[in-house]
């Protein structure tokens, strides 16, 4: 085979690979959308499960996920943004920042089920919160902390050094420069990171398995110490346990679709914001 024919063949293989990847995702999305679409209705979203979860909607699971997202974001965002400010604005690259960066990378690579074990040992047992919204949210907050820190750091780095120098040269203190000059310029990037971690929290199952998710609850959680239902856990138990797996397939497709749409919407939003912000920077 001469060089040109080899090249043609090689490029064809590359194209086939990317096509395979794209079509796999397309099939997955299409399948869940088509199967779930028939079940989806306002009623499905706003009614309680009925008849031992073989009929009815997913209202408590949807709300449980909303609570979970709200609480873990409220915990992780201040911690994450402050850490990023320290790393990018205050710290000089030394041994201690190396340790912090290493911790962030390892936290990001730790399997989600290990976070679940940790949440069980520390929050549920040691702090004695019991299986609860609080224990699960704290566990998930730790899980998304690296995401928030990395995104915020990335956003802070892109703020031009001149901004800081100009402010400092006018005699403004470091904190006021950070607070009034650097942070506002970094907000879009930080927001993108936060939105991405919302998607992460909404979709995670393994960390909430033993820290507070409930198979079925006839009401919404009334305090941070109650257990809760959540969309991904709901999908998991409906699809794998119980006696009516085949009968409840429509509910499973509906739940999968709602979860998928939620997470995809959040991801798309993050992509759009970032794109808008990048175009603005270029100008």
């Amino acid at each position, binding site marked *: 085979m001469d060089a040109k024919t080899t090249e043609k063949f090689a490029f064809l293989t590359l194209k086939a690979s990317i096509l395979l990847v794209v079509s796999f995702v397309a099939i997955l999305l299409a399948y869940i959308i088509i199967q779930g679409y028939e079940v989806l209705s306002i009623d499905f979203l706003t009614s309680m499960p009925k008849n031992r979860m073989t009929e009815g909607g997913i209202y408590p699971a949807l709300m449980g996920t909303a609570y979970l997202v709200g609480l873990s974001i409220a915990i992780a965002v201040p911690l994450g943004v402050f850490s990023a*400010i320290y790393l990018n604005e205050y710290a000089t690259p030394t041994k201690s920042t190396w340790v912090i960066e290493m911790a962030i990378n390892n936290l990001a690579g730790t399997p989600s089920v290990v976070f679940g074990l940790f949440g069980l*040992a520390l929050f549920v047992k040691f702090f004695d919160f019991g299986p609860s919204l609080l224990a699960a949210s704290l566990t998930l907050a730790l899980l998304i902390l690296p995401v928030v820190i990395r995104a915020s750091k990335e956003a802070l780095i892109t703020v031009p050094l001149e901004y800081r120098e100009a402010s400092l040269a006018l005699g403004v203190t470091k904190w006021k420069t950070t607070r009034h000059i650097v942070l506002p310029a970094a907000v879009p990037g930080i927001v993108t990171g936060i939105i991405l971690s919302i998607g992460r929290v909404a979709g995670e199952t393994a960390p909430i398995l033993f820290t507070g998710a409930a198979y079925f609850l006839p009401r919404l959680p009334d305090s941070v110490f109650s257990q809760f239902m959540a969309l991904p856990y709901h999908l998991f138990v409906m699809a*794998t346990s119980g006696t009516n797996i085949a009968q409840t397939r429509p509910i499973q497709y509906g739940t999968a679709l709602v979860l998928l749409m939620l997470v995809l919407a959040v991801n798309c939003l993050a992509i759009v914001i970032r794109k808008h912000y990048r175009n603005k920077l270029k100008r």
Partner: protein
Amino acid sequence: MVHRRYKEKGIETVFFVTAAITVLALLFICLFLFRDGYLLFETSSFIDFITGDAWYPTSTPARFGLLPLLFGSLLVTAGAIFISVPLGVAAAIYISELSSPRVSDFLKPFIEILAGIPSVVYGFFGLVVLVPLIKELLGLPTGQTALAGSIMLSMMALPTIISISEDAISAVPLSLKEGSLALGGTQWQTIYKVVLPAALSGISAAVILGIGRAIGETMTVLMVTGNTAVIPGFPEGILDPVRTMTATIALEMGEVPQGSEHYHALFAVGSVLFITTFIINLIADKIKKKYKLKEGL
């Protein structure tokens, strides 16, 4: 003035303390995981755990052998990497070297979406579509096999592999490529003989991180691999049900009495998992630092 300086110092301290929480969290994870795992070895021996070939947590006496679970994880991960590395590297080459900017503007967000799909949705899709398909096509007694897990995991590891490989390929200096093309090399010869070798270290970081992703994934493997705790054959065991370390923890932790031997055994498995991914991350981190690659998805 003095007051102002103290205030500034105070603010810096607050930031430092929050940043230190990450380190503290990691230390606490080690501490709590290892402590609860270590308690297993007060009742059964460490050697029995590490070299045990049977995981029978409910028999009397109970047996907590790591090997079936460890080999289960390794088999599923090996299968996933076998599929996703060629696919991922090919996709990365396509995106960075061949596609028009318009196409890569579409492909990159697409890959990010791939990374955003929750693992339980992958697991569900695998369960209702892939598992019956494998059973039909290969004529197996059950479709819940290591193969099903490998295929689903390969898709989940792809975003990591593609994004870091792409970064490594883009980082190859233009002058190298131009040199090759000027000598009359075709574009493919340039990619294959110049770009890929130069990007190899970066790509290896991508592969290592992909392994980390696959070995730690829980819900998907739990839903599609059948969860039978026997030491799988290699490679023919890919067509049998297997049980991974992650699935074992997720499956059994809900039912064990807290503080029992079984409970500690699951923490011991969790510790093994944590140490494995810790080492994987450390190696990938070293390579990424050396070649100044980004974090990846």
